[in-house]
């Protein structure tokens, strides 16, 4: 697997897009910090950007990479390598390179601003952890989509739809149902609905740590009431890990049955 991982990272590091993504975060970090001059505000702004952008980039890069490396995959399939190793190697490669762009792109400006001397370092670290989780989750989800259809346009379309659904439409439906059923107890429903969406889950995880009640919202408040900050964080981190594990299991099932 490490050989495949090595080659896919090697391949990705040469692609223009990794650098564009890296430079975007680098620029964003510098602009936010040096125009704003307020670390904790910068962290909140960054959270909002990361929660929208990492899932989008993860989904788009995931499908694109799968389709673009199809020839390479076929070449590898004829070599004496286990199928699992090929796909997990490629998956880890793309997820790691996206995470690298995120962590380095944001890390450099924050470190140069003097992050290590402040108390915000934990919030910032958590932000990067959540961003990395979202990378791994959305690349896995989009790999599943790409494995299900050989049509590039369709695959890309489904991936974007999935992102749109989880980052925008889902929240809308969630709010509407909260309003419509406001006469009933909704604690459990909203807890459950949050766990079913990795983006909402990440938002709550960060807000629990930042401890900003105004931004916490209904579900966040329920989360804190139910579990307290510590347990709530552990629980949401576990749920995020499951969001990586389940798509990966599904992916393994898919590619072990796929014809090339």
């Amino acid at each position, binding site marked *: 697997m490490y050989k495949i991982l090595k080659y896919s990272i090697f391949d990705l590091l040469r692609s223009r897009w990794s650098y564009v993504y890296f430079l975007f975060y680098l620029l964003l970090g510098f602009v936010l910090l040096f125009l704003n001059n307020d670390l904790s505000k910068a962290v909140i702004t960054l959270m909002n950007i990361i929660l929208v952008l990492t899932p989008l980039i993860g989904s788009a890069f995931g499908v694109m990479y799968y389709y673009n490396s199809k020839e*390479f995959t076929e070449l590898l399939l004829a*070599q004496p390598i286990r199928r699992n190793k090929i796909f997990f190697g490629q998956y880890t490669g793309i997820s790691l390179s996206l995470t690298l762009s995120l962590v380095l792109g944001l890390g450099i400006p924050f470190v140069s601003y003097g992050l290590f001397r402040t108390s915000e370092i934990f919030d910032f670290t958590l932000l990067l952890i959540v961003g990395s989780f979202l990378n791994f989750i959305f690349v896995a989800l989009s790999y599943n989509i790409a494995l299900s259809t050989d049509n590039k346009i369709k695959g890309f379309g489904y991936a974007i739809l999935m992102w749109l659904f989880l980052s925008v439409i889902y929240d809308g439906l969630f709010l509407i149902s909260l309003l419509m059923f406001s006469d009933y107890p909704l604690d459990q429903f909203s807890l459950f609905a949050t766990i079913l969406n990795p983006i909402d889950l990440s938002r709550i995880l960060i807000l629990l740590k930042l401890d900003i009640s105004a931004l916490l919202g209904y579900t966040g408040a329920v989360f804190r009431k139910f579990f307290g900050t510590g347990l709530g964080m552990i629980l949401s981190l576990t749920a995020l890990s499951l969001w990586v594990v389940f798509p990966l299991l599904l992916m393994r099932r898919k590619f072990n049955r796929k014809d090339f």
Partner: protein
Amino acid sequence: MIEIKDLHKKYGKLTVLDGLELEFKKGGILAILGPNGSGKTTLIKCLLGMVIPNKGNITINGKSVLKKWEYRNNLNYLPQIANFPSNLSVIELINMVKNLRSKQSNEQELISLFGLEEFLKKKLGNLSGGTKQKVNLILAFMFDSDLIILDEPTTGLDPISLIHLKDLIRKERVKGKTILITTHIMSFVDEMADEIVFLLDGKIYFNGSGEALKKQTKIDDLERAIASLISKHYV
């Protein structure tokens, strides 16, 4: 050496292989022929483990190869369409494939045989179809394996490279290798093949030597003999 039993493969509603049975002994050149869409490539990909059959079994040297991967260490494959990652250079690709197998390779000899020295540092995306096919051939012949599978090896090759290819195949036969070839070029089959398998609608329609085929159809030209096999079926 290779034994295929009751092999079935469907893509959705389309039946590609329909209870195919085939046995092939070690050593020699086997040509797999058939009209477009007769299941040649699917058969080869089943052998390679790239396509998973719905039913049936494939054994090489007595061991089932389904869902296995170690056996590919002793198998070289030339894919039909030479698609490579476009931002790797030729030499990087060759080194990568070498790295994946813990085997001796003789790529230098093949590179000079096909005159690819000047292309080694070029990106694969910038190569012409014929040059890509030469790279493809190097990857397929650089390891010493008992089984060599060539899917349309002649595509896009110039006459000199074609002669080199034929020499290469003959050399491997002398070494006692088993070589499977699919092609549509009958003169190539006539010249090279020891045995012909004719596939039609996912089944073996004919299995024997070129001479036997000519005798059976009473036509002395292999191309016409094959054409008569196909047309008889469709009448």
